């Protein structure tokens, strides 16, 4: 017997082990489906889910393809940028950056009505987050967007020494909060880098509770999915360096000519209920 085993090649021993595997007795596997389901229904997930990506793929693919082509044309031609900007009725952001007219920045960016933080809060169904990072101060201008952006809040910081003016917005810092989810996916053109960034320090079940993306480099588009899963194409505009992440049901983004580290610092300091 001993000699027989010693003579076994690896392949023979492997075959014997596979054969053994089919003759093993395991404790019977419990049915976990009900317990797992009950748990998940009691504790619904609060993370981004690109709803509708599958269901609406038929609609989405041509739309995204068209947008990708548009992105390329826009990136290449300033004339095309102006033309398309007026066509889409969104104020030129990258386009008019050279000659920002006087007046509140938000009007140039077509961000909606300028309001106080308290009034803005009354008009949106979610709690507005504002940065609490020391030295940053409160936003200079606050806007609530018009339909179809019902619920979009924009916080603007004017350009200053520690917040250089971003050519894409004309502002030092633009923070946008909208009840939707980000879609980054395959919409990023060459020349734009995308890096995952941990936002929340909290860890739930061993995984970072909130993770965002840092988009930098050449201007690119941003897309959202509405809560119903439709692509919000009206939110499309050229953006510079952006930190985008989902916080509960709200998609947030920070745009500015700032470093990734600075953007993450600001993101981590975002809190509700800051007096303004």
């Amino acid at each position, binding site marked *: *017997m*001993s*000699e027989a*085993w*010693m003579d*076994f090649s*690896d392949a023979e*021993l*492997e075959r*014997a*082990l*596979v*054969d*053994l*595997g089919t*003759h*093993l*007795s*395991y*404790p019977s*596997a*419990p*049915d*976990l*489906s009900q*317990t*797992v*389901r009950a*748990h*998940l*229904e009691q504790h*619904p*997930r609060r*993370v*981004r*889910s*690109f*709803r*509708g*990506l*599958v*269901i609406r793929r038929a609609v989405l693919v041509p739309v995204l393809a068209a947008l990708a082509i548009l992105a390329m044309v826009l990136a290449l031609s300033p004339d095309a940028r102006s033309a398309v900007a007026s066509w889409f009725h969104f104020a030129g952001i990258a386009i008019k950056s050279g000659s920002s007219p006087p007046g509140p920045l938000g009007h140039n960016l077509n961000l909606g009505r300028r309001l106080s933080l308290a009034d803005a809060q009354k008009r949106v169904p979610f709690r507005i987050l504002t940065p609490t990072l020391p030295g940053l101060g409160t936003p200079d201008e606050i806007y609530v967007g018009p339909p179809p952006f019902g619920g979009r809040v924009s916080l603007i910081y004017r350009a200053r020494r520690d917040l250089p003016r971003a050519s894409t917005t004309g502002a030092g810092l633009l923070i946008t909060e909208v009840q939707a989810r980000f879609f980054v996916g395959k919409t990023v053109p060459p020349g734009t880098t995308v890096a995952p960034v941990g936002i929340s320090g909290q860890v*739930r*079940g*061993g*995984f970072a509770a909130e*993770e965002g993306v840092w988009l930098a480099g050449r201007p690119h588009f941003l897309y959202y999915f509405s809560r119903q*899963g439709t692509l919000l194409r009206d939110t499309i505009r050229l953006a510079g360096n952006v930190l985008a992440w989902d916080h509960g049901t709200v998609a947030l983004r920070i745009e500015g000519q700032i470093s990734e580290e600075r953007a993450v610092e600001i993101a981590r300091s975002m809190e509700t209920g800051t007096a303004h």
Partner: protein
Amino acid sequence: MGSRPLDDVELVERSKAGDVSAYEQLVCRYQEVAFRTAYIMTRDAEAAKDAAQSGFIKAYYALHRFRSGAPFRPWLLKIVANEARNQARSTSRRTGLELRLAEGRPRDDAAPSPEEAALVAFNRYTLLAAVNALEEQARQVIACRYFLDLSEAETANALGCARGTVKSRLSRALDRLRQMLGDESSHLVDEGVHHE
């Protein structure tokens, strides 16, 4: 539409969108291999059940990190195995793997003679006793790869090591098995019988 069962990719996408029923189907599909993988790690049925269950739950909450279109099973097993390792640390009861007692009649065309059948059974006992006597790392790599039929990548995921490490551990484990079987087969048989 028809009654074609949805494939993993579709179920995962639906689960990502919050469809708990779709995820339930994934649980049904993979709970056995999840449980067995956890059992290999913990050697305790209760701990394995807990590990598989919390593995499924954590995987669901982490779905946004799962790359669409990637194979679901290796990713799931990695999470389950991780849970199992945590469970194993707090488990004192450890049982070895056992052979099924009631073996059905083999379906092979050539039914073995009683002597041959006895020899085959004896060899299985011997081999299993040797596997059970292996040190933990070697036992786990053998069990994942050959008993659970996990791919090399899945085994690497489950054991939390590189694929190259799986290869080298397997090679060492096979050598060790051969050595044990050569040196101590009669002693091991006693142990194997003892498990029953």
